[in-house]
C-alpha cells in the first residue's frame, strides 16, 4: 500500500466519520425512538417449557407443552432460546396410531410435532435436579448449549409447567416432586445471579396456585390453573388417539394466544380477563404482587414473543476508543470497565461462566444516553475512523 493511498483513505474516513457523528449527535432521540425500547427493559426472550408426566395416558400434558412450544416459536422465539423438557415420547410411541404427530385437538388440524421440533431434555433427563440446575445455571461443564438457559439480567423468561401435582408440589415422572419452596428458591437464586429481567410463571396442574405461593423474588408474575383443593381437568379426548388431548386451562389460554401475532398489542391483563370458571372448571389464579408493572401495560409478546429491543450503551466502546487516542490512560480506565463489582460473585457461583458472558445477549451497544453529547461525538468519530481505516486497509489488500 502506497503512503498516498493511505492518506487518501484517511481523509475520506475522517470526512465520513464527522458527517456520521454530526448526524448522530443531532438524532440520538430519533434513534432511540426508532428502536422503541420496551417498557419491561428486556432485550431477549427465553422459554422453559416443561412436561413432567411420563406414560401414554398423559398424552395431554405433552400436548400442553408442545402447544406452548408452537406458540412461542410462532411468535418468534428461536429454538436456541427454548428449553423443552418432555418426560416421555408420545409422538413415536407404538400406541400412537398417527406416528410422529401430537395433536391438541380431536379435529387434528395441526400437528404440534411437525417437521421441525427440538426437544432438549427428554425421558429420564427430566428430573427435578436437572430443572433446578437449568434455571440456576449450575450445570455440568460438558453440558451443551442447547441444554443451558443462557439468560442475563435483560431476559424475559416464560416458565411453563404441566403435569400432575398437589398442594405445593408438582410430580416429576411419578418418581419425585418439586415443591413450591424449591421453585421459590430457584427463582431467588436466579434473581441474585441476575439471570432474568422478568419471569412469567405459568402452571397447569391440580392445585396449581399453591405452587407460586412461595416465590418471593421481584418481577415474577405467576398464574396457575386451579386453587387449593381444586383439580384441573382435561378439555376433551380424541376417540382415535384414545386419550384426552389437552387440558382446559391451556386450551383456553391458547384460544387467546392463537389470535396474537408479533405485532399484537394484547396485554397480559387481556389474557387474565379471559379466565372463566365455567369454561375451565377450576379457579385460575394470578399473583402479581411481586411484579412492578401494571398488567394492562404488559404485552403478551413480552413473554410469548421475541421482541428484539436494542439498548444504547457504550461502556466497552469507550475503553477501546481511549486506547487508540491516548494509550497511557488505558491502565487507569481499564479496571473500572472490565469487571462490574457484581460480576465476580456471579462467576464464582457459575462454573459455566465463559459461555454466558459473551455470546447470548442481543444488546447492541452504540451509545449511552447518560453520556454527554461532546463525549459521544469524540467517541463516535474515533470509532468511525477506526472502521474506515480497517475498511481501507482491507480493500487495498484486495
Amino acid at each position, binding site marked *: 500500500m502506497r503512503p498516498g493511498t493511505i492518506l487518501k483513505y484517511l481523509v475520506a474516513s475522517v470526512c465520513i466519520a464527522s458527517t456520521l457523528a454530526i448526524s448522530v449527535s443531532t438524532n440520538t432521540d430519533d434513534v432511540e425512538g426508532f428502536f422503541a425500547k420496551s417498557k419491561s427493559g428486556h432485550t431477549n426472550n427465553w422459554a422453559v417449557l416443561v412436561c413432567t408426566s411420563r406414560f401414554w395416558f398423559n398424552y395431554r400434558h405433552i400436548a400442553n407443552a408442545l402447544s406452548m412450544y408452537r406458540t412461542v416459536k410462532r411468535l418468534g422465539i428461536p429454538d436456541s432460546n427454548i428449553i423443552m423438557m418432555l418426560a416421555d415420547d408420545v409422538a413415536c410411541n407404538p400406541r400412537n396410531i398417527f406416528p*410422529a404427530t401430537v395433536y391438541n385437538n380431536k379435529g387434528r388440524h395441526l400437528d404440534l410435532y*411437525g*417437521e421441525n*421440533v427440538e426437544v432438549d431434555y427428554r425421558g429420564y433427563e427430566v428430573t427435578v435436579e436437572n430443572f433446578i440446575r437449568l434455571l440456576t445455571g449450575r450445570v455440568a461443564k460438558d453440558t451443551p448449549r*442447547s441444554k443451558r438457559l443462557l439468560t442475563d439480567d435483560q431476559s424475559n423468561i416464560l416458565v411453563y409447567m404441566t403435569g400432575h401435582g398437589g398442594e405445593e408440589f408438582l410430580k416429576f415422572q411419578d418418581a419425585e416432586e418439586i415443591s413450591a419452596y424449591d421453585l421459590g428458591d430457584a427463582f431467588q437464586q436466579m434473581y441474585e445471579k441476575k439471570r432474568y429481567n422478568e419471569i412469567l410463571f405459568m402452571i397447569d396442574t391440580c392445585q396449581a396456585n399453591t405452587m407460586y405461593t412461595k416465590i418471593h423474588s421481584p418481577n415474577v408474575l405467576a398464574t396457575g390453573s386451579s386453587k387449593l383443593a381444586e383439580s384441573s381437568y382435561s378439555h376433551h379426548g380424541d376417540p382415535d388417539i384414545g386419550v384426552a388431548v389437552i387440558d382446559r386451562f391451556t386450551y383456553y389460554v391458547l384460544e387467546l394466544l392463537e389470535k396474537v401475532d408479533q405485532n399484537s398489542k394484547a396485554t397480559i391483563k387481556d389474557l387474565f380477563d379471559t379466565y372463566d370458571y365455567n369454561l375451565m372448571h377450576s379457579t385460575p389464579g394470578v399473583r402479581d404482587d411481586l411484579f412492578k408493572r401494571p398488567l394492562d401495560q404488559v404485552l403478551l409478546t413480552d413473554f410469548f414473543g421475541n421482541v428484539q429491543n436494542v439498548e444504547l450503551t457504550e461502556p466497552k466502546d469507550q475503553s477501546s476508543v481511549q486506547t487508540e487516542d491516548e494509550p497511557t490512560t488505558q491502565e487507569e480506565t481499564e479496571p473500572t470497565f472490565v469487571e462490574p463489582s457484581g460480576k465476580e460473585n456471579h462467576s464464582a457461583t457459575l462454573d459455566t461462566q465463559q459461555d454466558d458472558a459473551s455470546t447470548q445477549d442481543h444488546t447492541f451497544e452504540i451509545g449511552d444516553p447518560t453520556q454527554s453529547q461532546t463525549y459521544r461525538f469524540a467517541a463516535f468519530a474515533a470509532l468511525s475512523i477506526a472502521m474506515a481505516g480497517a475498511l481501507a486497509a482491507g480493500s487495498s489488500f484486495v
Partner: protein
Amino acid sequence: MLLLTGALLALSISSASVSASSAGQEAFTAKDAIPILKAPEAFHEELVLKPLNDGSVYSHFQFTTHIGTVMDEEHFEGAASNLFTHYNLFPRSIGQILHSFDVEELHLTFTQGRWHYGDWGYPIAPSVGTGVELWAWLNDENKQTDTNWKGLTNTLSGLFCASLNFIDDTITIEPKLSFRNEGLYNVHTRSPAAKNNTESRTNPRKLRYGSLPHENVCTENLTPWIKLLPCKNKSGIASLLKSHKLFDTRFYSMAIHVRPVCEDELCSVKSLELVQSVTTVFDVARHDGSYDWTMTGLFEREITQACPLATTSKVVLHLPQTTEYRNQYQLVPFPPQGAYSIGSTQDNIQEIAVYDLKTDLETHPASTPFQISLRWENSRPKSVLPISPGIVAHRYFTGYGQEHGGLAIEIHNNNEQDVEAIYLDTLPWYLKLYLHTFSIQLNGKTIDNQRDLVQKMYYQPAVDRSRPAVLELALRLPAKSMVKFSVSFDKVFLKYTEHPPDANRGFDVGCAVITVQLPRERGQIGYGGLDHLRIYQEREASLVQSRLTMDEDDGDEAQVIKRQESEMDRIRVYTETLLVSLPTPDFSMPYNVITLTCTVIALFFGSIFNLMTRNFEVVEPKGAKDAKGKGKSD
C-alpha cells in the same frame, strides 16, 4: 479465484461421472472408470430401494460428503487435524466436534425397531442394533480420551436432541476385538522408510463404545440430522424424508459415520468421509395385502430435482428376485440404460435398475417429478427366492424369579464352511455374571473342549456403579452348525434412588454384536449397488493387496489368508435387546413406614406416656370445687 477453480473441478468431475454412468454396464464393472476425486469437497446422494420377500419395501438413503486434503506420508497427522478451516458442503457442526474432541472416526446410529435377518437378509447399513449406538476412535496423543469421550457424548446429545449423555463410565466399554477402525489409516506405512518409523508415527488411538437400548428415536432426532445435509430436505433425494412416513414403518434407522479414506489408489490424497444414512422398512402390505407400491405412496413426497450441490444423485432399485415366473411385475419407468446385474456368482446375482437423477431429470423434463411404481400381477408375487443369511444370532434370558437368571446365545452358521466370528456382549453391572457357569453346546450337545470353538476370550468383570461386564469371544463356528452359549448371573438389589421412574418396566440390556467375515456372495444386500461403497471397498481391497506384495517376508501361508480376507465382507450381526426385571422395592414403603410409625407413637406411646407421667390422686369431694375453679382460670 479459488472458487472458480473449485467450480471448474466440480464441473469436470460431474461430467466425468455422467459419462461413466451413461456408458452403462461396461463402465460400471470396469475398474478404471472409477472417478478419482480431487475436489476439495464433494457430495453424493443415493437411494436404494428393495422389495423384500414379505412384501415390505426396504429403503436406504445414503448421503456422502467428502472433505479432502492432500497429505503425504511425512505429514500425516490424523484425520481431524488441519482439515477444518473452510466449509462448503461438509457440516460445520460435525467438523467442529471432530476437531475439538480429537475424533478420528465416529459412528452414531439411532434405531427404532428390530431388523429381521431371516426375512430381510443383511442391511446395507452397518449398524442395526435397537436404540442408540455410538462408537468412536479417539486420538490419545494427549491422554485426554476419557475427557474427550465425555465431551463428545454430551455435545452429540445436544446436537441430536438425544440422551447420549447417559453414555457414561457405567456403560462405556473398550472392545478389544470388535469395532476395528474402518478408515484407511495403515497406508502411510507403505514405504519401507515410513514402515520403520511406524511406532513413532502412528497416533495412539483409543476406541470407545456405548449403547442406549432404550432410547427413543423420533422427529427431534431427524430434524438436526437433516440440517447437516447441504441441500437440507429442500431438493434432491432428501426431499423424500418426511417424518410422518418414516416413523410409520417396521424398522427405522438413521446414522452418521465419519472416517478418513483415500481418494486414489496410492493414497496421496486423503479425505474425510461423512456418510449419513436413513434406513427404513415400509410395511406396504399392511392395509390391503397388496405388494404393489409407488414412491409417492411410500414417502408422500416427490423428487423434483437432484440436489444441485450433489456430484452424483442416483436411485437404485433392486429388482425382485423371483424363481420360475419371469416378468411377474411391471416397473414404471424402466431405466433408460436397462437393468444390469451385480454379484459374481449364481447365488447372489442381483439385477438392479439405476436411475441417474442428474441426467434423467435435467435432460427429460417430462419425467419430473421423479416417480417409480412397481406392480405385480394379482398384486403379489407367485414365488420368491428364499433368503438365507449366513450368520443369524438370537439371545434370550433363561431362568425365573428376581434373584438369579441366565443368558443364552444361539448362533446359527448356515454357511458351507467354517466361519470366524467375534462375539461382543456388554452387560450392565447390576447383572453379576458367573464365568465358571459358561458352557457351550454344539448342535444341542455340550462340548468339553471349548478350545475348538472359542479361540480367544476376553472378559472384563463389572465393577458396581462404575463399569459394565464385557464378554468378547473369538469364535470358529463349524459349517452348518448351531452354537449355543449359556452363562448364569445374579440380579443385584439396586438402591432406592437408582431405579428409573418406570422401574417396573424393567431394565434394557443392549444388543450383542457378532462381527463376522462372510464371503461376498451370501444372500445379503451388501453394498447394494451403491457406487461409492463399492469404490471404497475395492480401493481398500487393492490397498491391502498392494501391501501384501510388499510384505514378502510374511510367507506364502499368511498371504493366502490375507488374500482370502480381502475377498470377504466384514459385517456385523446384531441380536435382540433384552429386558430384565430386577427386584423393585415398594416405592411407597417409606411413606407407609412413616405413617405406621407415627400412628404407633401417637396411639400407644402417647397414651402410655400420659399414663406414666400423670399423677393420679384421690380428690376429696370438698376440694373438688376448688379444683374446678382453678381449672377454669387456667
